[in-house]
């Protein structure tokens, strides 16, 4: 690869960027992942399930190590491990948010998720030691890569995203109600418990797909920061969901563009842009609240929904 140089002519820069097939692949994969992560992450932030999301993300390690041991493709290990972890969390958190507090309450749930995570990581170590080889691309696994994404991967990502978005399109509205007010939802006959588990499965799929681009440790840059920023800015569900997608695309495209012209890795730029976005949104929220005297400051409006 000849060294890319950034000029002040943006059109020329974008043109140069798109001249390489690997960069086109990266942009397509990044776009797919950003849209999917923004939509699923929006629900995750609303449901306060970031810890569950992070735990499924770490399952990439046992997934990859297990796949190496069994001689399966890495991506398959990813998806399997994430799916199993999502189901384990769904089972062990015993209703979690939905079932009237759940057993052990909030604390019990956080312990259950932590236990699922360490059990997965400990298994990963066992697989790695049994495999007794070097797990290739450890850094790419942890921190992601956007080089060397081939057409097959883009196609797989597109199919996964299609399935995830279609599933969310079907359950989106009852899931929103179940997330905001589980008791009212179950009074109306919404299957809150099934939605809990179903959403965790969707989250697991999304995390597995996202972590192939951003790495397992950095999925939150797309999964948490854009939705949290969007929800800080507006209480209207439809609008903040759209904003979340826009933010995630912005973070992804800017990150890819900048890291192409820089010697430093994509992960740093994506997380930094996500963090800056979140801080800016929080500050904007605070400024708007201070400006409007009717609303009490320091208390951001919760996401409200008119069902």
């Amino acid at each position, binding site marked *: 690869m000849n060294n890319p140089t950034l000029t002040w002519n943006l059109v020329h820069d974008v043109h140069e960027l798109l001249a390489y097939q690997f960069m086109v692949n990266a942009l397509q994969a990044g776009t797919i992942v950003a849209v999917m992560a923004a939509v699923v992450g929006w629900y995750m932030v609303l449901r306060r399930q970031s810890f569950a999301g992070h735990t499924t993300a770490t399952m990439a390690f046992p997934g990859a190590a297990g796949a190496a041991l069994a001689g399966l493709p890495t991506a398959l290990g990813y998806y399997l491990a994430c799916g199993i972890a999502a189901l384990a969390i769904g089972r062990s958190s015993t209703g979690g948010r939905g079932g009237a507090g759940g*057993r052990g*309450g909030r604390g019990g749930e956080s312990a259950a998720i*932590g236990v699922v995570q*360490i*059990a997965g990581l400990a298994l990963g170590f066992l697989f790695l030691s049994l495999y007794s080889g070097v797990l290739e691309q450890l850094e790419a696994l942890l921190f992601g890569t956007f080089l060397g994404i081939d057409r097959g991967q883009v196609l797989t990502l597109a199919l996964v995203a299609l399935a995830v978005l279609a599933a969310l399109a079907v359950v989106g509205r009852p899931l929103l109600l179940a997330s905001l007010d589980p008791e009212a939802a179950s009074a109306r006959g919404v299957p809150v418990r099934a939605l809990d588990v179903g959403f965790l499965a969707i989250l697991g799929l999304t995390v597995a797909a996202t972590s192939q681009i951003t790495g397992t440790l950095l999925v939150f840059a797309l999964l948490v920061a854009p939705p949290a920023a969007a929800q800080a800015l507006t209480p209207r569900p439809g609008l903040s969901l759209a904003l979340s997608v826009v933010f995630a695309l912005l973070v992804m495209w800017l990150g890819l563009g900048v890291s192409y012209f820089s010697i430093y890795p994509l992960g740093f730029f994506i997380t930094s842009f996500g963090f800056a976005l979140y801080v800016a949104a929080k500050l904007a929220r605070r400024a708007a609240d201070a400006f409007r005297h009717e609303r009490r400051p320091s208390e951001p409006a919760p996401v409200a929904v008119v069902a």
Partner: protein
Amino acid sequence: MLAHEFIRNAYVAGTFVALASGLLGWFAVLRGQVFAGDALGHVAFVGAIAAAVVGVDERVGLFALTLGLAAVMAGLGRRAQANDVTIGVVFSWVLGIGVLLIAVLSTGSSGGDGLIVANTLFGSIFGLGAGQSLVAAAVGLGVVLAAMSIARPLLFASLDGELAALHGVPVRALGLVLLLLIGAVTAEGTQAVGALLVLGLIAAPAGAALRLTCRPYIGMALSGAIALVAMWGGIALSYALPSLPPSTAIIGLAVGAYALASVASKIVVWAPKRKSGHPAAVGEVRLP
């Protein structure tokens, strides 16, 4: 087995790290703060890499970053408890900086990038020298003593923050101290026994203890005891089966204890009600 020096060192360091993790974990689980401890464990290695870039001892970086981040988390949240979104955003950014530092290291003259990452992420309890294990034991013991000295007000603040504040208990300061203590044991534990072990011993024994008893001081002692048994048993098990990594053995025992406790608590809940009125729900801790 004890004739080997590395096993003796592992027992010396492991005993106190396990006690500290089990005790702090009881509070972390009670307060729903396992994610905060988890985040501290994941960012710890960034501190080690930063120290390598600057050229100081990695322990300086580990402690500076975990303690600093613990303070930030405590400062951002209400009742000194950051919510999960804040934790997620902050910790992914710190990891992003870690990625940058790895790149800086590997493009710089020093080299050896992957090795540092691997060592700090996967520090092994069997690789400790005599001096290191004594330092780890001292830090663990100090954390245990500090936690025990604030146990009573911290318990009050955790169970009913508003009532505690009315009684003049410094609720925010106690939340900060708890996170700082978790940060300290994470920083020491990460480079001594591996970040995974610390997180495991924070979450699993405490989760098991809280399912078995709702009496606070017995719960704390039980949590520490389960962590200790998992540590001692895991080291012995891993020594007996060389292909079993010590972290996996120790975590395996701790997770097993958690699973057993979950099953046991379900059986107790299904059993016919005791005559002595309304039993406390599992996991519901009451003020002594």
